[in-house]
């Protein structure tokens, strides 16, 4: 598998994420972190007892949630970001193989073919984007209670609560997997990864 034709000697690093993309990830992660943390302080009685100040915590939570989609929307101005969204969207036959292997807990490299993003990353990206918007929608229903018909707030609270729990678990998985792969983290931090890592983890990726 040759990577890009003009690639320099094997020791060189391969560009994975542009500066714009890294900032989109960084700011989204920060806002999501604020949302999760304030949510925990609103929701877990022991933590709520620790800080009180419900009104302030609610305000921070609301504004962080409202701002959460902004980095991604701003990122659409970047060609590299749009191109990666394209990669994340499209599933090829290799992605179906990857998913089947994941379901069988088959960890062998040859049964997990991946392009720039593997099928798991693709599904995570699409799901978390959708889930974020559902949280935003239900959050707005809970926020502007007098704009919506009766009943809606309770229903929105129900979806908001349970989806929050789900997002918490999935997000922990996302962070856990990043913790287990220093080179992937380096890619997100510095923008480039080692050729060896790219060939191992993303053999079908051609930068």
């Amino acid at each position, binding site marked *: 598998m040759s990577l890009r034709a003009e690639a320099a000697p094997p020791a060189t690093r391969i560009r994975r994420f542009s500066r714009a993309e890294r900032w989109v990830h960084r700011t989204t992660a920060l806002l999501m972190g604020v949302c999760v943390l304030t949510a925990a302080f609103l929701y877990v009685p022991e933590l709520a007892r620790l800080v009180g100040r419900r009104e302030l915590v609610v305000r921070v939570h609301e504004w962080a949630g409202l701002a959460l989609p902004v980095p991604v929307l701003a990122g659409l101005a970047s060609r590299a970001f749009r191109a990666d969204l394209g990669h994340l969207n499209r599933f090829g036959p290799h992605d179906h193989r990857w998913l089947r292997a994941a379901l069988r807990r088959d960890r062998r490299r040859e049964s997990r073919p991946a392009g720039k993003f593997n099928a798991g990353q693709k599904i995570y990206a699409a799901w978390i984007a959708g889930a974020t918007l559902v949280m935003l929608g239900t959050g707005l229903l809970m926020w502007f209670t007098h704009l919506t018909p009766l009943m809606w707030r309770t*229903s929105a609270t129900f979806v908001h609560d349970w989806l929050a729990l789900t997002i918490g678990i999935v997000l922990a998985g996302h962070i856990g997997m990043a913790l287990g792969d220093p080179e992937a983290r380096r890619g997100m931090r510095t923008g480039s990864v080692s050729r060896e890592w790219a060939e191992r983890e993303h053999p079908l990726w051609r930068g």
Partner: protein
Amino acid sequence: MRSDDENLTAAPDPWPPRPPECSNGRVNPEQPEERGTPVGRRVFLGTLGLGALGVVAAPTLQRGLEDFLGSAADKDPTGLTDLLPNGGGFRYYSVASSVPHKNAETYRLTVDGLVDRPADYTLADLQALPQTRLVRDVQCVTGWRVPETPFEGVRLSVLLDAAGVRAKAGAVRFTCFDGTYTESLTLAQARRADVLVALRMQDKDLGHDHGGPVRLYVAPMYFYKSAKWLSGITVTEKVRPGYWEERGYDVDAWVGRSNGRDDEPTS
């Protein structure tokens, strides 16, 4: 599966695979990512759809889950089910950054305003007055409900009568020793037999986290009316909206008939 895909892609694909000769050479014909089904978009839209469906189906789902989790919580020694939404039981809300602790020595309840005989009560004074025990459901405006919770204490009307409410009075305002929270009732509401200055809850002395040693208990209204850490009762001419009411909640907070909710009445 295949035929589904064909049906779905019958509409013009916004992202058709480009033949290599159209490009200026940068496109790698082996690039697997440019083609393929737009699964990402489907997962994204599917998640949105499920969210919307969840809002529509919430009343039904919530009832089922409450029943299930309520019974699971009864048999759960770890207390983990309490962390799940609608897991049953009370939730702690405080609007202040920290709340001082008061005990039998330090606690005082003041009754003043438009009354002939302002008074200060210690905890022992309140305990010496006739006690009333009510067992009703507690309904929070955010949705949770705790069934058949006993509250015990002095009827508010007893304290008002002892103080001698003046003729031009029309409302009662409550203040709390957390220093922030306030509540209010009309005089007619305050005189109801199911409004208590509560000293006990669930047949135990009120603990600090539940608003002890003394809290208000307004049985027929949403639980935000039942101010915790009650320290002052002031008779006024008109109702002054309380803490949450200035932030959009209804002043007349009858369960099932306010705040845009239709819960079963509690009293």
